């Protein structure tokens, strides 16, 4: 809720946007006005202005026609995800598909999905897991694979811990981040029990020719140094009815996605017919990401 005189006007008058923009870091690719409020407090006009700013600046920077969406959650939709552990072969095509789709930094390398190789005899045991496996071919005998990304918890510890409210759970279940509001304190990184949140330790590099020009304000738009990012269930795709990229790219069909409120969805079928587990159940985070044995 913005006050009568918006914070933006007030502070712009007081401090002067120009000086603040200079202090705000030359690495800011979007030149978003420094005193913009938290995304949740923006009026419709301010969101439209934000989108216009982003489209202009991103198109200029990457030399493409960038489309920025600020689409909100749809009513009657609660997203959930299911991953078939018996079918994941650890090929990492989801990891790199996600990197391309979501404009992740190539150097320093940022991967939203981490595939853990585990021992079939030991079962799910994080202390014996290995995300750095390299092999001629996968799956390696005697091993199974567990990809981990943001679990989009119903009771997210990251949302609780953020001191400025830069991350929150949207109405369709996706936990999103306002990249312009995040102060980079990394409380959320400490809070997440799944290691899902990534921090931009350096200025992200994204080759222009590899940039995905269809972006969402709270999703896959290119981020800046010093803020946190993570999987958003491809918010720019799913809010338009499409599947996340990882679901479509997985060659064995191990990934399933859908609307929990639709009885005919794949995700409901999985929950009703398959043996389903969640990670770190005892922490009561209530993930929307289920692992099952097909």
């Amino acid at each position: 809720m913005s006050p009568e005189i918006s914070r933006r006007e007030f502070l712009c008058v007081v401090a002067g946007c120009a000086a603040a923009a200079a202090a705000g870091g030359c690495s800011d690719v979007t030149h978003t006005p420094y005193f913009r409020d938290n995304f949740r407090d923006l009026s419709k006009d301010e969101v439209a202005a934000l989108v216009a700013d982003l489209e202009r600046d991103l198109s200029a920077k990457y030399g493409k026609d960038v489309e920025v969406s600020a689409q909100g959650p749809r009513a009657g939709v609660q997203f959930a995800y299911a991953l078939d552990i018996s079918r994941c072969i650890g090929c990492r095509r989801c990891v790199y598909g996600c990197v391309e789709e979501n404009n992740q930094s190539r150097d320093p390398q940022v991967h939203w999905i981490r595939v853990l190789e585990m021992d079939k005899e030991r079962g799910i045991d994080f202390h014996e897991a290995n995300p750095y496996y390299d092999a001629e071919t996968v799956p390696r005998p005697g091993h199974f694979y567990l990809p981990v990304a943001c679990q989009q918890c119903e009771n997210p510890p990251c949302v609780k811990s953020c001191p400025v409210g830069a991350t929150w759970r949207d109405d369709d279940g996706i936990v999103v981040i306002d990249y312009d509001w995040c102060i980079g304190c990394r409380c959320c990184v400490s809070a997440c029990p799944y290691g899902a949140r990534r921090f931009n330790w350096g200025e992200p590099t994204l080759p222009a020719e590899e940039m995905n020009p269809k972006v969402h304000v709270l999703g896959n738009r290119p981020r800046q140094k010093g803020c946190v990012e993570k999987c958003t269930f491809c918010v720019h795709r799913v809010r338009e009815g499409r599947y996340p990229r990882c679901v479509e790219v997985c060659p064995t069909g191990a990934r399933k996605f859908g609307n929990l409120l639709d009885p005919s969805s794949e995700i409901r079928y999985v929950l009703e017919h398959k043996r389903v587990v969640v990670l770190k159940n005892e922490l009561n985070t209530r993930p929307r990401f289920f692992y099952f044995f097909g």
Partner: protein
Amino acid sequence: MTSPRPAARPLAPTALVALVVALATTGCGEPAVHAPLPQAPAADGAAVVPVDEMKFEVPPPPFSSPDVFPCSECHDAELPPNPKRRALTMAHEDVVLHHDEEHRWCLDCHDAQDRDMLRLANGTLVRFEESYRLCGQCHGDKYRDWRAGVHGRRTGSWDGPKQYLLCVHCHNSHAPRFKPIPPRPAPVRPGSIR
């Protein structure tokens, strides 16, 4: 359970090509034999096949190109069927069966009289576009999962048209088990990020 299905219509050829190219490049697993992954679709577009009142739009099955299908071009009246179970030597010797080969052989699935059709256990003939009915006979749980969209690769929209693939688009019916594939590179270790 019923899913909302779009009215029967052929998939646009370009969409099919895109789908097939996507399949070919990402790979459903290399088959054991030399049968290539799905080629460009036939000119008449997709096949729409009815199953239990549900219609699945699927890309054309493998070997649909005029070079291969219809099989009856070779298997005609001049080539009488030989029902004796044996290893093939005159042709199709590249097809090595790794699919319950202890108990089954070619003519258990391929109809002896009409090579353009597949044969269910009760003798019913099905077209190659409906080959999932054949697979579903033994692999009932997979078939039910596939029908619900839970088995196999899923593309499309979670709240709109979904693209189905035939079993054979990913599994080589003669050697269905996926072969291991090379993984993409491991992530960089944190100590190496400078």
